[in-house]
């Protein structure tokens, strides 16, 4: 079993002190180096990079493809540890996380109807968005399914104390889902920020399609219906890495009203990220295997 410094720091309090002393940028740069080595040492790392290489083999020049595949491996390693990174460096997010476009959020909240922040599913470091915004004083909740609530909450540490938490729906429990939507609506009434990342599907309604690199996938119609019913402003929000070893959260201007218009515009924003940074997506394997959703 391989343990990284961040993982070990959660087990040994002495190491946590040491980890906190390491500048996060150094750690993330080290992740890039270790990803480069891991592909030689661990078959698992090679397997993780394979879907990316299969899908983009003829899109990038060989040198560019190699660099992007390594970035993809680095991202996958960093993503796994992002909750631990937060627990280690939550007291100085300014050292490793920046926010751009925050004025869109403050302007939208000024209307008093709450705000939806929407990220691409399984893309980038979107899980980092609620704690970072909560630390800045926003009232944030994140929606998701309830497969492992205790694990997710535990990994992120003192999220309730920081003013953000997950609200869940349980698959197959109709009334639980309705109650969750009710909770979400009440939170918007209190001018909260709701962060969601709608699923991507293999099939769907044509209006929900995102046309990417010879393939199509479909956005989750249901979440866009929820947002239409709630009538709160909807801002696309993505978190990706930078060359300097930091993470940038970008908040975009509000989407237009109407389910189809909002899905179309969100699809365009998501597509821009996928085209510029395909290495920050974790669904290439699922897409190639034609799973129903990812």
């Amino acid at each position, binding site marked *: 079993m391989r343990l990284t410094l961040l993982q070990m720091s959660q087990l040994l309090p002495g190491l946590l002190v040491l980890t906190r002393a390491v500048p996060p940028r150094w750690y993330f740069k080290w992740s890039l180096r270790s990803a480069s080595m891991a592909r030689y040492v661990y078959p698992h790392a090679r397997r993780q990079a394979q879907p990316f290489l299969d899908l983009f083999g003829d899109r990038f020049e060989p040198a560019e493809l190699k660099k992007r595949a390594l970035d993809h491996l680095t991202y996958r390693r960093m993503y796994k540890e992002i909750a631990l990174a937060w627990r280690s460096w939550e007291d100085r997010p300014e050292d490793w996380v920046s926010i751009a476009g925050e004025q869109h959020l403050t302007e939208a909240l000024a209307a008093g109807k709450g705000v939806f922040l929407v990220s691409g599913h399984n893309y980038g470091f979107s899980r980092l968005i609620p704690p970072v915004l909560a630390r800045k004083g926003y009232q944030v909740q994140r929606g998701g399914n309830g497969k492992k609530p205790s694990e997710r909450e535990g990994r992120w540490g003192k999220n309730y104390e920081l003013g953000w938490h997950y609200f869940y*729906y349980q698959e*197959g*429990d*109709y*009334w639980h*889902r*309705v*109650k969750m*939507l*009710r*909770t979400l*609506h009440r939170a918007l009434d209190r001018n909260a920020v709701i962060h969601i990342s709608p699923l991507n599907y293999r099939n769907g309604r044509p209006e929900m399609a995102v046309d990417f690199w010879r393939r199509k996938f479909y956005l989750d119609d*249901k979440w866009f*219906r*929820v947002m239409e*019913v709630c009538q709160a402003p909807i801002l696309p929000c993505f978190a990706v890495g930078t060359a300097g070893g930091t993470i940038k959260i970008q908040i975009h201007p509000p989407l237009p009203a109407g389910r189809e218009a909002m899905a179309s515009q969100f699809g365009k924003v998501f597509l821009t990220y996928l085209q510029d940074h395909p290495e920050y997506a974790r669904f290439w394997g699922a897409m190639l295997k034609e799973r129903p959703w990812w």
Partner: protein
Amino acid sequence: MQRKQLEEGIGRILSKYGTVEAGEDSRKLVLLTEGGAFDSVTALEVILKLEKQFNIVIRDDEVCAENLASFDAIARFVQAKLLNG
């Protein structure tokens, strides 16, 4: 509010989704359930409209099949809310 008036109001809300027809059978039909005529997002819409139209607040613990699954259940529930506050 008269029961008939109340039922007309509920009928108007539900008819937007094209599933409520006249007759005793349809009034007992379970609309809001897994695999029923209304999915969970529609259920949220119905709840919000009931609150607005009848000026009531539906608490989280009242969001359940007993109160909201069918036309009859909704009518009974809203009437009780209006009577008891």
